[in-house]
């Protein structure tokens, strides 16, 4: 019954042997049990998944866990993937699903725990100036007020710059629906952004944040 704390074994070392082949052959290799395939799929798509999640939820302490969860979900259900060449889009879909669940859960928790709805999400301070930091915080505070599907569509299309068709596929909906969703999201975002001084200045044509390339 008793389980005192104990030392955990070191994490396994990733194979240094690179895998050659497209996504379809990688998926087939994974299904065959090729030990290099798991690492290769991660190496190939980890940045993409991280960026997509980051756009949707902003910087948060749960980002790394969510990232891990997406890969675990994807790889554990890989046998069900009908078209191995569509692995990246399928992975994106899982990331969207994970982010949607996370955002919804956070909103429920806020409601349950009497947390103000204006809660600002975490932002990495790093080298960003206070104003840039506030801009990031304010942006995700505004996104928090949008319906979750509109927020996700907005983040993927406008913050990430994803193609409309890819956004529709990731959100598992039609192109027409995603366009309507984006229209609503843009209007709502602008209305809410104008309530945030740092964002309003930008929308009014100010250059307070400067050019990121200049920082």
């Amino acid at each position: 019954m008793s389980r005192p704390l104990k030392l955990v074994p070191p994490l396994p070392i990733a194979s240094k042997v690179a895998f050659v082949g497209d996504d379809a052959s990688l998926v087939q290799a994974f299904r065959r049990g090729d030990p290099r395939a798991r690492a290769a799929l991660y190496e190939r798509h980890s940045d993409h998944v991280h960026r997509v999640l980051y756009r949707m939820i902003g910087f948060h302490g749960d980002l790394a866990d969510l990232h891990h969860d997406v890969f675990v979900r994807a790889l554990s259900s890989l046998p069900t993937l009908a078209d191995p060449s569509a692995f990246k889009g399928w992975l994106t879909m899982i990331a969207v699903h994970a982010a949607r669940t996370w955002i919804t859960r956070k909103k429920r928790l806020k409601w349950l725990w009497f947390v103000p709805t204006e809660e600002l999400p975490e932002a990495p301070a790093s080298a960003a100036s206070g104003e840039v930091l506030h801009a990031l915080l304010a942006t995700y505070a505004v996104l928090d007020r949008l319906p979750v599907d509109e927020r996700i569509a907005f983040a993927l299309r406008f913050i990430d710059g994803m193609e409309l068709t890819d956004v529709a596929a990731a959100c598992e909906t039609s192109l027409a629906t995603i366009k309507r969703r984006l229209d609503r999201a843009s209007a709502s975002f602008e209305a809410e952004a104008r309530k945030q001084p740092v964002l309003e200045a930008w929308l009014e044509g100010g250059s307070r944040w400067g050019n990121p390339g200049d920082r």
Partner: protein
Amino acid sequence: MGKSRRSVTDLAQRVGAMQDEARGARLDRERGLARLLAADLDGAAGRDAARGRAPTLSVRLVTALAAAVVIASIALVIGLRPRASLGFELGTIDAGVVGEWIAAPPAAELPIRFSDGSRLRLAPGGRARVASVSATGAEIALERGALDLEVVHRDHTSWLVRVGPFQIHVIGTRFETSWDPVTEQFGVALREGAITVSGPFVGEARAVHAGERLTISTAKNTIETGAIDARAEPPPILTAPVVQAPVPAPSGAVPVAPSPPARVVELEPALPRGSTSSDVAAAIAPPAPDPPGWAALALDAKYKDALAAAEREGFDAICSRASARDLHALGDAARLGGSAARSAQAFNTLRARFPGSPDAAAAAFILGRIAQDQGHDYAGAAAWYTRYLSEQPGGAFAADAAGRLVEVEDRMGDAVAAQRAAKRYLAAYPKGSHAAFAESVIARGSHPNAPGTIRDP
């Protein structure tokens, strides 16, 4: 696409660019890959086999119906049966009862075993109570005596130990704590893991590190830190002066003024077993010839000197390597030394390097105060207070943050937001120090506040 739409999309693109530049948010690929390679995919397959597929409409309908049935069943079960919480046993056979006082015999310790494998040992003569249990942990109240805890770490583990006026937050660890209500002395010694202590002198969350012992006397206004002695006895109180700290009182503890911050005497690390008192003396002598560093000056409440010393030592370099606790101290020294910018830098770094930690949450509140009091940036202050409240809704600064949120919303002239904040404040703290002000905000209705009528807390 109209002008405003272009502005929104342009703004969003700029946000993406800023995100890409933020170093703190970059993916740790090496760690992520190692974690994935260690993951049990077979175990997750059963849970997640259906995830990620694009379900058809009929599948969705069936899923929705099934979900409705499941939700109704769960609601029924929840309505009929309480959620499974940890159970615990006393001694060898007695089942523990939540809320009842537990007293250890005068000559023997009393083991308390929890169903998650966590083990507690109440020292002879001790008196404690399991105040509550949940699926993820328990709340223990130690009335007197010593308690040895070995808490098993699991996902979302959350234990709280109330010891006199102090609270110990535990995730998974092994430590001892004690409380003597007569002498009002609190002690905690951490053997493994990490805990935070909150209460008098230590504020909201003072991290205690493995191998560290912390002793606080609320009667004498003293606080001592040192290493856990190898013999598991209370560490010897050193009477020699400590480097970079003033000569302590004969007892080894330095009396402190009732007003914060309490001064801390850092004892030398424990010496190996068998060390003699002369070894101890050798270890702490001679006094360092170098001028005192910023940390020592900050402990001496010489904040301007501490800030100047930090600048000499390299403020940026300190920020990049300091512990969370030191960053907190550095931020306080800079703030009280007169540099709001340096203080904000330290606290922002603290939040970036130690996200999710109690110190990071406290930093949010302090950043709010800096923005409000020194920068007169009320929107920024509101953002930080809101952030703090979201991270620590029951934290030591929660009442102050909620009250200050009313102030800054009112100061910004946003009557609706100010009233909303005031109502929330009054609901949570009807007799709080900001209650009168919150009531005045509500009574004023939607008429914006005249500048300068805000009242200091």
